[in-house]
């Protein structure tokens, strides 16, 4: 096949995937009644399952290439933001799902790549949020504030490095659980950080643009949340790019080795400690930035947003999406965040529902909902 032809095919395939995804998402977000939500959901299941079973979806993805699919999906997301430009509720939902997705990407690096458990994801999300709350009032440029959110989350996480390196498995998990609980109780009793009432934040200001204001461009009313959504899309793109770059480089190979067999990895001269530290720190930084942006968007943070339950929800998303599967991760994040909002009756029962779901997946399909694809040596099959 000639290069031009291949390029056109790639673009078409990517566009097809993004168009179908955008249609389904539009249907879901626009759905008013619970019945419509159910119908759209059923449609999505049929489309995805059909696409996977008939091998159409994998073939499309392979034809398009990862990068093209990502760009097409980003364009689709921007288009959706355009469609819902004056609906703050839908925009808020989209932004929240994207930010949770980013946080899960951080967890993905830690758990799925390096095998370091982190049951305090919500706590690091909170560290980012509180950093933004404390720094955001000053004159610091907000882009720097967001970066600081990530840096502080990583720094706080570094307190756990020694404990995590000296332990493994259950013990390491317990340390992160203890940290998550510690963080929450600390916030509740700490007066400077607002105690149980939490803190208020001003909105994000970037490039002289105040994100909290609705504005009119050429006579079209645009909700302030649309800008947050765009920022979240950008952040998600950066995070995916970062994670994929790490995974497809030799660092990813080292992380795989550390996760799969520490002893063997050490025998090959891979420093287990160094890669665990790298993965844990990078993951926390990503989670922290997402937390910072989320706090600025919501305009208010309190300890109750960062409970152990929320950390478990993040891990559940990872697991339900299939550990190590980024596409599955995205789908799981959307469903877990949106479904309770769209189906009000299950809102109250969401933790119960997710926990039972995860248990079922673990017991019935121990390998995960979607089996993990092994790394292909030398990328030989890509061509």
């Amino acid at each position, binding site marked *: 096949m000639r290069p031009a032809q291949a390029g056109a095919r790639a673009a078409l395939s990517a566009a097809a995937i993004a168009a179908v995804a955008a249609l389904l998402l539009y249907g879901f977000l626009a759905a008013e009644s619970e019945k419509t939500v159910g119908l759209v959901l059923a449609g999505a299941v049929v489309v995805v399952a059909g696409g996977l079973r008939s091998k159409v979806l994998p073939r499309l993805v392979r034809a398009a290439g990862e990068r093209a699919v990502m760009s097409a999906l980003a364009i689709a997301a921007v288009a959706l933001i355009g469609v819902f430009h004056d609906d703050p509720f839908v925009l808020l939902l989209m932004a929240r799902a994207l930010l949770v997705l980013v946080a899960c990407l951080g967890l993905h690096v830690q758990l799925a790549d390096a095998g370091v458990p982190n049951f305090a994801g919500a706590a690091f999300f909170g560290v980012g949020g509180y950093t933004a709350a404390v720094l955001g009032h000053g004159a610091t440029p907000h882009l720097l504030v967001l970066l600081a959110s990530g840096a502080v989350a990583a720094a706080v996480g570094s307190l756990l490095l020694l404990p995590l390196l000296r332990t493994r498995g259950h013990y390491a998990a317990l340390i992160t659980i203890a940290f998550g609980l510690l963080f929450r109780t600390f916030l509740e009793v700490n007066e400077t950080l607002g105690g149980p009432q939490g803190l208020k934040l001003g909105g994000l200001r970037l490039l002289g643009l105040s994100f909290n204001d609705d504005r009119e461009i050429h006579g079209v009313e645009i909700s302030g949340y649309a800008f947050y959504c765009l920022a979240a899309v950008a952040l998600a793109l950066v995070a995916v790019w970062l994670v994929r770059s790490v995974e497809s480089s030799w660092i990813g190979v080292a992380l795989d080795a550390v996760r799969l067999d520490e002893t063997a990895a050490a025998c090959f001269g891979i420093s287990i400690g160094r890669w665990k530290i790298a993965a844990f720190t990078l993951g926390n930084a990503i989670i922290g930035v997402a937390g910072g942006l989320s706090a600025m968007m919501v305009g208010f943070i309190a300890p109750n947003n960062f409970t152990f339950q929320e950390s478990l929800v993040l891990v559940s998303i990872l697991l339900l999406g299939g550990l190590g599967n980024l596409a599955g991760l995205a789908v799981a994040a959307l469903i877990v965040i949106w479904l309770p909002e769209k189906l009000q009756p299950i809102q109250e029962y969401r933790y119960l529902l997710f926990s039972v779901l995860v248990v079922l997946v673990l017991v019935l399909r*121990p390998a995960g909902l979607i089996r993990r694809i092994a790394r292909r040596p030398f990328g030989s099959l890509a061509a």
Partner: protein
Amino acid sequence: MNGVMLGLMYALVALGFTLFFGVLDVVQFAHGDVLTAGAFVGLAAYAALLHAGVQAAVPQLIVVVLAATFSMAILGAVLGRVLVLPLKGAPALNTLLATLMGGTALRECIRLFYPGGSQPQRFPALLPTASWSMGRFNLRVDNLLMLLAGVVLVLGLSLLLRRTRLGLAIRAVAQDEETARTMGIDFRRVVLLTFAIGSALAAFAGVMNGLYYNEINFGSGLLLGVIGFSAAVLGGLGSFTGAVLGGFLFAGLQTLGAVVMPFASAYKDVFAFAVVILLMTWKPTGLIGEELGERV
């Protein structure tokens, strides 16, 4: 006194962890929530008794304790059967997640389905509350009774493990599963019975917790579970005396922290979790400590 009571509660929870780890090499993270569930079943039994018109404290107490321990023994065995045994041989993370999520489900069930379960519930004082004061000390009868019961329970468990056929079977399975199987020990039965015993202990600790603080909360098991687990780790997972020692040591540290830093009483729980992390870092395999060698 406070420290001793806490120590006993921690020890009871830690014993559960150590038992489970002994027979199956797993950590059952729903254990803390089993404790809470036990306390709530006890409370429900009390409410039912009041409804039936039983006013005397002694039968009330007996029914509350029996209801809590027996129901949790069954629940523990069910959890073992559904969450832990099917995942035998799966990566450690899977068991961990499954039991964590199982615990979450339990916690949420209490919060959602127990009337007023999202609020702290008052737990009735079923024991005589007379007290003797000796100088600065104030010794309360109810605390003394609870303490006695707890000690009897721990000693009873120790006897059960050392002197009965079941105890022999449990120890055999803990030592070497395969050999135990070839010796004709019903592995599944022993494991499930162990889960039942451990969970009954947790339920007892839960009722004790309720009687001591006169209040129970759907989330309180999480804290006790985490502390109990680290107490068991501190004493060396799988070791009986280690678990008891670890429980008391932990309570001692916590009381000490409260005495040394009275200004920071609000940070009591923060301190407890920090101690958990520090102790695990310092002695990842416990004070008595197994050697962690690895064969390739």
